[in-house]
Every structure is written in C-alpha cells, then in structure tokens.
C-alpha cells in the first residue's frame, strides 16, 4: 500500500532530511581528498532543501497517515525553526569538527536524523507517533553528545544524557499507556474526559507522567540536573543543537497536548506554574556562580526554559490559549537564534579541545576581534532581554500573555529574574570590552562558515527585535491553527 500523494507532499521535509542522511552515510566511504567540503555541502544542502520544501506542508494543511500527523500552521512554524537550526548547526560545525579531528559523515547524518525526529514531534497528533519522533531525536543527540570519544567529559556527558534521558522517556511511555487505559485511544483529539467512574484519576496520572518526561527534555526544574554537565561535555556545536532544536520540538509537543487535550490544561496548570518559577530561579542563580562560559550558557538555557514555561502556564490558565501559544512560538524562534549564535561563537573561540572556555579567556576580545565580539555581545544582550534586541520582544509577549491570564505573580518573578540575569550576561560583556587583551593567547581568525552562521543569527536577532510584526502574525496564525479544546 502506497500512501496518497498528498500525504507524501505533506511529509516532504522529513523525507528529504531522511534521504539526505542516508545518502551521506552511503557516499562517505567513497569520498576522498576534498571530501570534507563535499560532505558538509551535501548535509547543508539537504537541510536547506528541507527548509525550502516546508512550503508543501504550509500550502497543504490537513492530516496525514490516517490522522497520525496533523500538518497545520503550528507544525509548519516549528518545522521552520528546527530545520533552520539544523542548517546553521551543520554549517557551524564543519570547522570545529576539523579542528577536533572528528570529521565524519555520520555526524551530519545524525544531525539530519535528529531533525527528522523533531519535525515529527512538531506534527504528531497521536502519541505513538510522538513517542517514536521523540526517541529519534533523543537517541541521535545522545550519540552526538559523546562524539569526542577521547575526551572523558564528552563520554560522561553522553552517558548521563542517555541514562537519565531513557529514564525520562520511560515516564513518558508509562504516561501514554495510562492515557490509553483511561480513554481507549492514543489520538490526542479524541482524548475526551472519560465518563466511566474511576478513570479520571488515571487520566491525570498519565498526564502527570507525560509532563515529567517532557519536562526532562526541556530541562525544566526539578528535572534540570543533567543540563550543565551534558551541555558542557558535549561538543559545543552539538550543545548549540541540543539547546535550540530538541527543546523547541519538546515544547511544541507539550503545547499541542495542552491545546488539544482538555484535561491537560487544568491538571497541568499548577505544575507548570511551580516549575516555571523554580526553573527561572535555579537557572539564573546558578549561572551567576559560573566561571566557565559554556556552563554559564547552559544554566542560562535552563532559565530560558523557565521563561517559556511562564507562557505555557498562561496558555493553560485561560480558555484562550492563542496568546500564550503565540508567545511561546515567538520566543522559541528568538531563543533558538540567539542561543545557537552564542554557542557557535563559543565553539570557535574555545580553540583546540575547547581549552579557552573561562570568562577570563574572553578578556579584551573587542580589541582583537571587534565584529565577532560585537555579535556575541548582541546575543548576550538579547538573552538578557534588552530593548531593540529580539529577546526583549520575546519576553514582552510572554509578559503580556501572563498578564492576560492574570498570572501577576509569575510576571513579577519573570521581571525579577531578568534583573538577576543581567549580572552574569553583563559581566562577560564587561570583560570583553573593558579589560586588556590576553597576551598569551591570540584567538584564531573566524573561518567564513562560522562568520556566516554568526551573521545570520545576528541578523535574525535584529530583525525579530525590530520588525516583529510578520513573524508574530505567523505565530498567532499558528496558534489559531491548533484544534482547540
């Protein structure tokens, strides 16, 4: 049985990503000489093509494969985010892998396959499909985290991520089983409140366990303990991927469940509230104490998950989920760009075997590499949420959604946390701009590929900060395209 043509077209990005991943694996052994550039080019081409082909699902909304996938504005928005992340990470990885002598076709194949998983998570309207998508993206990232095999830190990172991640996945799976027991279906849209007595609590338990599994994937407190070690040990371009792509996909899955399953909104609300507050504080307070920039950025990504959770709580609290969902989507796009830019910059500056990761190593960088330092400063200011940068608008929309749902206290906590965060972001900028350059260690010049990624991320950060109209309109449209409770 061959699926109908429309279903295939709706699935075009996933198909292109998988095929280019397989192609990379097949041709890699036959390439010699100039193979490095060819492999990177092919991988970038594959992800770029997938990005372009998102036009098919965008113009053909509907369900595919007997209702397992729901292709709507929401899934298309997340598709574009994760595919863009994959594209930029692939280009940004090439020089790093060369320097660390771990240049393989498999690396890019894994990035592409991980992206397939994320895309499926974004469009899944059914829990089995969501689960396989989640596993596809998770297992690829476990492997990528351990890619520097000779470095014990990297091994530790992969091992920790794998063990704890599998544990979290088991919770998610148990939750699916309980939901199936309570409602008799795995289709999200058909999960109505059970009428039979005795099953309501089963539904709640299932939703609770699923929240645990997904909270792990987005690194929300109290399931964030793995994040700093895993992010620090993984190769930095992989950290850039982990911090932006899978997180966006897991948030998308959470949002879709929240918007589709009626019971989720009421049952999850307080859990989301508490987790949001906790995550913001844990991330920001721990980040202050860090002297390693990579680790600091890892903690900062925890705190950002907290900000996004505020918008999720806002979506759960009100009957109109659109405001909260749109805020999450906008923030995901903004966050992916600035976090990716920051990590790719750090991956280049770290030098061979990531030696230069301390804040002290960034002394006087503005004199040595004014343009790159300016880019990094821009990402940090955007992460902080300074006006004119996109981070400010992202936070503003979240703030707005929280107030509209009358979550005054969460909004206040968000504001307090932004002030706390200012301390550690500004410290790095001060070190870069106001200290004498480090004499012993001249940083290597930026390769063109990294420059390209940094300029795209910087341009995106500016664009989203100055002209939010179009993207916000798309995010709102995407939020409205969700089926609704």
């Amino acid at each position, binding site marked *: 049985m061959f699926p109908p043509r429309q279903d295939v077209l709706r699935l075009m990005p996933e198909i292109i990503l998988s095929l280019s991943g397989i192609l990379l694996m097949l041709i890699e052994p036959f390439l010699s000489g100039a193979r490095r550039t060819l492999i990177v080019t092919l991988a970038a081409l594959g992800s770029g093509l997938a990005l372009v082909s998102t036009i098919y699902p965008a113009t053909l909304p509907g369900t595919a494969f007997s209702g397992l996938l729901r292709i709507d504005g929401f899934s298309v928005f997340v598709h574009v985010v994760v595919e863009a992340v994959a594209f930029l990470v692939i280009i940004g990885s090439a020089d790093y892998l060369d320097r660390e002598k771990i*240049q393989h076709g498999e690396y890019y194949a894994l990035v592409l396959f991980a992206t397939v998983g994320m895309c499926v998570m974004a469009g899944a309207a059914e829990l089995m499909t969501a689960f396989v998508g989640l596993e596809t993206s998770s297992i690829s990232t476990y*492997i990528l985290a351990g890619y520097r095999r000779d470095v014990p830190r990297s091994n530790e990172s992969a091992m920790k991520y794998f063990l704890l991640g599998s544990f979290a996945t088991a919770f998610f799976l148990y939750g699916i089983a309980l939901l199936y027991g309570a409602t008799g279906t795995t289709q999200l849209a058909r999960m109505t409140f059970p009428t039979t007595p005795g099953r309501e609590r089963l539904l709640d338990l299932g939703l609770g366990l699923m929240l645990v599994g997904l909270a792990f994937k987005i690194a929300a407190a109290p399931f964030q303990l793995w994040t700093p070690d895993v992010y620090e040990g993984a190769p930095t371009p992989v950290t850039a991927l982990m911090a932006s792509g899978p997180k966006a996909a897991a948030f998308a899955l959470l949002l879709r469940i929240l918007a589709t399953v009626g019971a989720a909104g009421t049952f999850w609300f307080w859990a989301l509230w508490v987790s949001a507050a906790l995550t913001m504080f844990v991330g920001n307070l721990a980040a202050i104490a860090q002297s390693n920039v990579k680790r600091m950025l890892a903690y900062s990504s925890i705190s950002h998950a907290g900000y996004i959770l505020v918008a999720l709580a806002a979506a759960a609290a009100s009957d109109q989920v659109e405001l909260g969902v749109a805020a999450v989507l906008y923030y995901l796009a903004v966050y992916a760009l600035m976090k990716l830019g920051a990590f790719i910059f750090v991956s280049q500056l770290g030098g061979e075997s990531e030696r230069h990761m301390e804040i002290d190593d960034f002394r006087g960088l503005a004199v040595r590499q004014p343009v790159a330092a300016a880019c990094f400063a821009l990402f940090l200011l955007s992460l902080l949420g300074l006006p004119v940068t996109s981070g400010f608008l992202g936070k503003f929309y979240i703030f707005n959604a929280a107030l509209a749902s009358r979550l005054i206290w969460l909004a206040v906590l968000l504001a307090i946390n932004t002030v706390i965060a200012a301390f550690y972001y500004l410290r790095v900028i001060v070190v870069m701009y106001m200290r004498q350059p480090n004499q012993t260690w001249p940083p290597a010049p930026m390769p063109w590929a990294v420059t390209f990624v940094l300029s795209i991320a910087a341009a995106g950060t500016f664009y989203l900060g100055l002209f939010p109209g179009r993207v916000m309109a798309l995010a709102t449209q995407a939020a409205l395209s969700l089926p609704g409770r």
Partner: protein
Amino acid sequence: MTPQLVIFLVLAAIAIAGAVNVILQRHPIHSAISLISVMIALAGLFLLLESEFIAVVQIIVYAGAIMVLFVFVIMLLNAGAEERTNMSRMARYAGVPLAIFLLIELAYQIGAAALSMTPQPLAEDVTRRLSMLLFQDFVFPFELTSILILIAILGALVLAQRGESVPAKGGPKTIT
C-alpha cells in the same frame, strides 16, 4: 478463583520477581537470565489474553534473538560484576519514599480503573487485525522506527570505534 486468575497471578509474580532481580543482580549475565524469565512470563500473559501471535513474537524476538545478542555482548565485553555504590542522602530520604508513593498510587488507581472496566468480547482474528493496525493505520511510526534503528546502528559504530580511527585525508576508513 477462576483458573485464569490463578495463572495470571503466577505469571505476574514471575514477571515482577524477575524484573526486580534484573536490577538486584550484580553480574550482568545473571541479570540477562532474569530478563529472559520476565520475557517468557510476559509471553504467557499475552497467551492468556488470547493473543497467540504476540506471545510467539515475544518469545522469538525478545526471549530469543535479543537475549542472545545481550548474552553475546556480555561475553564479548567480558563484563564482570559491577561495583555497588551507596545511595545518596537525597535518594534515600526523598527518592525512595516518593518512588514507593508513586508505586502505590499507580497500583491503586489502575486497580480502581480496572474494576470499572467490563470485559470486551475478543475480535475474531486478532492477528489479522493486528497486521491491519501495524501496516495500515500505524504504518508511519512503523516506518519511522526503521530510521530509529538506523540511528542505533550508526551510534554503535560511531561510539565503539576505538583509538585513532580518523584516517588521513584520502585514506580508506577502517573499522576495528
């Protein structure tokens, strides 16, 4: 007590005891053998539900193929008994009570829900319906699983390659 209930209780007890034993054993080969007993008990449970096909697949694939692979890997790695570590204070005073609470809550709620369920008449040809589900309704996740397995193979290859495996530019790649 119907005979079905007795068989169910016996099989369930074997499965749970085996599963607990998998964790408690210190030598991987003992864990693997306990796991086999879990798989076989599960196959028995499937038989009790009149799903003969799944029961047989459970035995052939899990108790057969996958366990043989497990044992082979343990043999090849020559894995010895693992060291035991002490529980952290956090795990002892917060983790264990919470885990027990979750277990009781789950057991209680599943039990309560099961009481309210009425037995459904079994469909005629279970295997046929299963294959329809697998290859028609759920063909998408089924196919996606093949990518998942591809990733697993890729991962084993990438992570298990030992030593200086990156060839000089142009050289053939050796996998050792």
